[in-house]
């Protein structure tokens, strides 16, 4: 059986402040009653992950991890959301590992496949930026050293 999952693009569409607030208050209310349903916990967590704020995303991932721990039946679905959350946070290694687990279970899952591609692309992109940075740093370093050497030689 294949899990029903949103595409990664859905994670970029953030909820309005009000909507998130409703989800939060629902979650808090259930928390106060000491019985939190999985659904409202997930609703809040997913709302948080969709949010553009990093702090929100982190909290959302933490909640998803809670669900993952407490609800073995929901783990497979959570794999994807966790992966997505890590992806949004920029922790591509974790994102890829969680997504990999899901792909192991459901190789034909389109959402997971596309998320995997997204992760790869992001990693590559980051890699190039990193390379460029290193390159730039090396150049600057070389120039500096060269300058120093020249000055030393002149003296």
């Amino acid at each position, binding site marked *: *059986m294949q*899990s*029903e*999952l*949103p595409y990664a693009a859905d994670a970029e569409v953030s*909820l309005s402040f*009000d*909507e998130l*607030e*409703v*989800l939060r*208050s629902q979650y808090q*209310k259930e928390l106060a009653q000491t*019985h939190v*349903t*999985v*659904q*409202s916990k*997930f*609703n809040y967590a*997913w709302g948080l992950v969709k949010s553009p704020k*990093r*702090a929100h995303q*982190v*909290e959302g991932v*933490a909640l998803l*991890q809670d669900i*993952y*721990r407490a*609800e*073995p*039946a*929901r*783990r*497979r*679905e959570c*794999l994807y959301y*966790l992966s997505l959350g*890590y992806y949004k*946070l920029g*922790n*591509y290694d*974790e994102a890829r*590992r*969680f997504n990999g*687990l899901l792909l192991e279970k459901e190789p034909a899952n389109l959402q997971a496949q596309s998320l995997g591609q997204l992760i*790869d692309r992001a*990693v*590559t992109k*980051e*890699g*190039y*930026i*990193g*390379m460029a*940075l*290193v390159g730039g*740093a090396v150049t600057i*370093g070389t120039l*500096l050293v060269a300058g120093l050497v020249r000055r030393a030689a002149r003296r």
Partner: protein
Amino acid sequence: MGSHPNHHPPSSEGNRNGLPPTETNKQTRFDFLQRAIMAPFNHTSSDSTRILSDLAPIIMTPRMMNSAAAITSRQRTGSDRGTLSRNRVDFATIGRAPLRLTLGSHQVTSHDLQIMEAAEELLEAEIPEPQGVASNVSLLRGFNATIPSSDKNRARRKQMRNVDTPRLGLKRLGAGARGLMTDDDGHSVASEDDVVVVSRSEPRRKGKRRARESLSAAKTLGKEELTRQSEEILRDKENLHVRRSLINSEIEEITHKIEALDSIRAKLEEDLLKLQEDELELTAELEGVNERLTFEQSSRRDQQSGIPASSRRKKGPSFLPSEHDELPPGVAFMTLESHTTPITALDFSEPYGTLVSASQEDAQPRVWDLLTGSEIGRLRGHNGTVKCLQVESHLCLTGGEDGTVRLWDLRKVDDDGTWGDDLVSLSDVAEEEGASNAGSDATTGKDDACLRLLEGHTKAVTALYFEDDCLVTGASDKTLRQWDLNTGQCVMTMDILWAISHPHPTNIGSSVLNPLFPPASTFDGHFSVQMPAHSDGSWDMFEDFVGGVQFWGYGLVSGSGDGAVRMWDMRTGQAHRTLLGHTGPITCVQFDEIHIMSGSLDKTIRIWDLRTGGIFQTLEYDHVVTALQFDTRKTVAAVGENGIKVYNRTSMQHSTLATNGHTKPVERLRYMDRYLVSGGRDSMLKIWSL
């Protein structure tokens, strides 16, 4: 620092700490600068070399290369691109390393670290197949169905139709009651939509009119809009369905949780009861130890008193062999079968001690060694069935149908069947006893186990109880007699018939005679009642007028065939209280400091309050009660069934001992501590661990 040269003034703290000689200072500053400039490169290089070295073995191992080559050659067609991208990713990984180090723009919070650390652990966890609601309703569907905006369409449609609904706040109330996601302070999307409707609505009086107008389709919405609306409605209905199944699954889950908690609670309560039991047991054990202590001290004082003063009533827990604890409780672990007729009486000295048992139409009670389960010998002397007996240490008293009571020394019983029925006359024994002081070597002339013969009752002795040298017997001649075992003389006779006909004036209850047993039947010479059938349909005539006796100090309690439990004063010989309530002859009676317990042919055990004389509790059974014994914690009873009934007085639980048990109804039993002996109509004796 202490070895620092003295010319530095001790006041300059900075100098002391800073290691200040000028040349070195310059050097360190340069060092620091160098280190600072080189730092990122050092880091990067170390990091990237680490990654390279991580990758290196994979890339470099020739075998790996070969296998990789083999694989690519085998599936050359599609895999080229894959390996390429794989390589690219590897380089990307290297490239990302500095980025992560240098451009970590976000500050790392503890939360971040937490979720990073948790990732490893979570990746380890196994992922079971989703089941139950997890397989029906995905989280996403639940999300879509429950987010506030799922109500948007409905509000929009309403607006479209311009049906203004009266704003009574009912919806929000209802939603709140159902625990749906609405915001309490009215900031939710749904309530904003509500506000929109309100703002457009006219005063209520007009609203009604307009509503009717709109419902009469005065306004045309267009086909497109209507199709869209119907689609939306269908989707909303589906959402509702999702929500319903979510709530149902929650309810189910809570039910499971409640069940689990309930079972935990029951378990804990059980534990609590067990603790209570353990505490009682410990208290009893302490009492026993203390008693033994005082007994051993007193016996050291006068070693020559051969018969230890033991009392069934005061007896604490006996000291069982340690192996006894390993026996499974509630199982008959030994069966003694040599009797051929139903057991009529039994008693034993102590667990794994000596057992004496008597059966119907058998004048010779058998003596058993409970450690080995072998028959030691027989008590020869009675003429007719032995109906009651009691064993204390090595002394045994038996009362028989022949109206006599015999005192035996069990130490002198051996399996020598040579001696015949040579009866020892009372005078002989009396002489013998007179010559030797109580209990000391009584083997003057004959090697006979029978120490004494007590004669006086004119009919079968049916109940007896002794403590130290005082004996009370009850017989079918409707009298109770008190004996002095030292002299063998009857000290007092208490006439039950007289007590029946002269009820004590202070006791109101006793003036009412039991209708089941009118005086006529009790007054006529022979007492005989047809016993209600046992569980297997068998029955006997019940002829034991006195079912049971017990005394403590001067207080005596008897249970008799007229269904009355009487309390006597042994100083006056008067019954000072009669407890009425049983509707059948009493078969057994026992009391402690608080309660009297009596079992009867009326299929009940009644527990009486010793002080007030009221019925404290009635235990009802399916068949006749023929024997019982109780302590503070439990009541063990033979109730005309194959199994032995145990009633736990602490937990109020009934249980039945049946494992490896009797094949016909149990009639007699005796227990000490956790060691029980029972005798049944199947002529067998069973030994149980409790």
